[in-house]
C-alpha cells in the first residue's frame, strides 16, 4: 500500500472513530435533557415520544421550588471543598517531611504510608462507621470530610513532588537561618503548585462522587450530599415524583460541575498533565 494511501486510511479511521465516540458520549446526555423537558404525564404513557412533542419547563419549576436540592448541593460543596483543603494541607506537610526533611524512621514510616495505597474503603468502612457512632459524629460535616483525609495517595504524590525539586532551592533560605517551616512555606511550596492543583481536582471529584460512606453516615435528608440525595430521589421516583422531574434533577445536579469544568478546563488539563511528569 502506498504511504499516502496508508495515511489517508489512518485519517479516515480516525475521523470515523472520533465521530462515533462523539455521538456515543453525547447521545445519553442529550436524551436526559430531552426527557427533562417533557411532561410527566406524557412519560407515564410509555408511548414512543415524538421529537416535536409538547415541551415544558415545569419539571425544572417544580425542582426550584423545592429547597432540598440546593441544600444537598451546598452540603456537597462544603464537604468537597474542605476535603480538598484538608488533603492539600496534610499531604503537603507530610510530603515535605518525607521528601525534604530527615527524621528517625523516616523511610520506614514512608513505606508504612505507601502500603495504605492498597487498602480499599470497603475493608475499613464498617469500623469507621462504628468509630463515628461512638463519638456521635454522624450526620455532621466532620464525619463526611475526615475519612477522605486518611488516603495516602496525596502524600505519595506530594512526597515525590517535593523530592523532585532541585536540592539547591533551600540553600539561600538556610543561609538566612530560616526555620524549616519558613523554608516550606516560602520557598518550596510555591514550586509544587501544579501538583497541588492535580491533587486538588482529583480529591474534589473523589469526594463529590463518594456514595457508600454518605449513605450510611448522613442519614438525615438535610445532611445528604448531592450524590446521595440523587440516589434517594431515584428510588423514590417510582412512588410518586415522576420521571420528568427526576431527569431535571439529574441535569441540575450535573450542570454545576460541568460548568466548573468548562470554565477551568485549561488549568485542569495542564494540572493533570503535570502530574504525569512524576
Amino acid at each position, binding site marked *: 500500500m502506498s504511504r499516502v494511501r*496508508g495515511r489517508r486510511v489512518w485519517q479516515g479511521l*480516525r475521523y470515523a*472513530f*472520533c465521530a462515533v*465516540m*462523539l455521538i456515543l*458520549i453525547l447521545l*445519553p*446526555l442529550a*436524551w*436526559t435533557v430531552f426527557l427533562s423537558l417533557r411532561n410527566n404525564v406524557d412519560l407515564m404513557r*410509555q408511548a*414512543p415520544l415524538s421529537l416535536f412533542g409538547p415541551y415544558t419547563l415545569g419539571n425544572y419549576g417544580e425542582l426550584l421550588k423545592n429547597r432540598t436540592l440546593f441544600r444537598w448541593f451546598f452540603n456537597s460543596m462544603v464537604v468537597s471543598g474542605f476535603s480538598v483543603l484538608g488533603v492539600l*494541607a*496534610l*499531604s503537603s*506537610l*507530610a510530603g515535605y*517531611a*518525607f521528601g525534604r526533611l530527615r*527524621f*528517625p524512621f523516616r523511610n520506614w*514510616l514512608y513505606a508504612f504510608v505507601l502500603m*495504605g495505597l*492498597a487498602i480499599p474503603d*470497603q*475493608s*475499613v*468502612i*464498617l*469500623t469507621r462507621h*462504628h*468509630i463515628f457512632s461512638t463519638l456521635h459524629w454522624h450526620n455532621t460535616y466532620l464525619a463526611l470530610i475526615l475519612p477522605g*483525609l*486518611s*488516603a*495516602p495517595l496525596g502524600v505519595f504524590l506530594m512526597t515525590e513532588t517535593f523530592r523532585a525539586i532541585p536540592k539547591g532551592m533551600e540553600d539561600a533560605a538556610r543561609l538566612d537561618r530560616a526555620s524549616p*517551616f519558613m523554608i*516550606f512555606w516560602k520557598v518550596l511550596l510555591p514550586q509544587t503548585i501544579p501538583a497541588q492543583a492535580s491533587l486538588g481536582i482529583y480529591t474534589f471529584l473523589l469526594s*463529590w*462522587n463518594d*456514595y457508600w460512606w454518605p449513605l450510611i453516615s448522613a442519614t438525615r435528608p438535610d445532611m445528604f450530599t*448531592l*450524590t446521595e440525595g*440523587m*440516589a434517594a430521589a*431515584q428510588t423514590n421516583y417510582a412512588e410518586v415524583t415522576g420521571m420528568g422531574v427526576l*431527569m431535571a434533577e*439529574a441535569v441540575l445536579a*450535573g450542570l454545576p*460541575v*460541568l460548568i466548573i*469544568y*468548562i470554565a477551568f*478546563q485549561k488549568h*485542569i*488539563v495542564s494540572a493533570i*498533565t503535570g*502530574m*504525569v511528569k512524576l
Partner: protein
Amino acid sequence: MAIMARKGEARGWGNLLFALPFLSVYVWLLVYPLLAGIRLSLYRANLFGGEHFIAFENYIRLFRDRTFIQALGNSILFVGLTVPLLVALALGLALSLNRATRFAAFMRSVVFASSVLSVTVLTIIWRQVLVPDGGLLSHFSHMIGQAPVAFLNDQRLVLPSLAVITVWWSLGLPMILFLSALQQVPRSVYEAAALDRATPWSVFRRITLPAVMPAVILVAAYECALQFQVFGQPQLLTQGGPNGASRPLVLYIYETGFNHWDIGYAAAASQMLFALILVALLVPQAARWLPAFLKGRRA
C-alpha cells in the same frame, strides 16, 4: 545558635511534626479500622452489638457460599470487561485527539465532561437509555421493528451493560494521562521518523507505544483497583440482579453487613476484596521486576 541548630537537625524529631497531622488521621481512620476489620472477621458479630470468637469459620463459610463465589466471579469478570476496553478506547482517543485543532479540544472536553458526573446522575441517565419501556434504545428498536432488549434484566447482558456504562463514564482521566505521555515525545523524533520514510504502523510501534506504555500500565493497575470496588452502578440499576448476575463483591459486602446484619461475615468478605486488590496492584510491579530479576540483576 549554629550548634543548637545542628543538634536539632541531627536528631530531627521536630521534623516529624510536619508529618504528624497526616499520620494521626491515617492511623486513626485507615490503619486501625483495617486491623479492627481483620479482627472482626474472626468473630460472629451483629450490627447492633454482640460478638463471639469463631476464628476462621467466616472464611470457610465464604468459600462454601455460592453467592460469594458468584460475586467474586462477577467482580473479576467486570474488571476484565471494563479495564481493557477502557484502556483501549482512552488510548485511541488520546492518539486521535493529540493535535491542536479546535475540534480536538472540543472533543477532549466532551469526553472529560462525562467523567465529572456523579455515579447517581450516571445511573439516572443510563437507566433511561437501557430500559425496554421508553428507553432510548427501545425507541431505536421500535424504529427498526424489533422488540426492545432488556439489557439490565438479562443474565448474560447485564454485566457487559454495566461495563459499557462504566467505560463511558471513566474515559476522561485515562485519556488525559495518555495525552500527557504522548506529548512528552518531542516533535523532532516524529520528524526524524518521517525523514526515514517510516510507515505509520512502525512509528506507532517504535515511538508512540513505548512512550505511552508506562502510563498504560499505571492506568491499568489503578483502574483495576478502582473497578474492583464498583458499587453505585449495580446497587442503583440492578440491585445485583437478575439472579445475582450483576452483584459484585462490594454489593455483597454491603448486603451482608446492612441487610443481614452479619458484620463479622461481611468483614471477612471485605478482607477478601483487600487481598484481591493487593494482587491486582502487585502484579504490574512483579511484571516489572521479574525480567530484570530473572536476568540476575537487582531492580
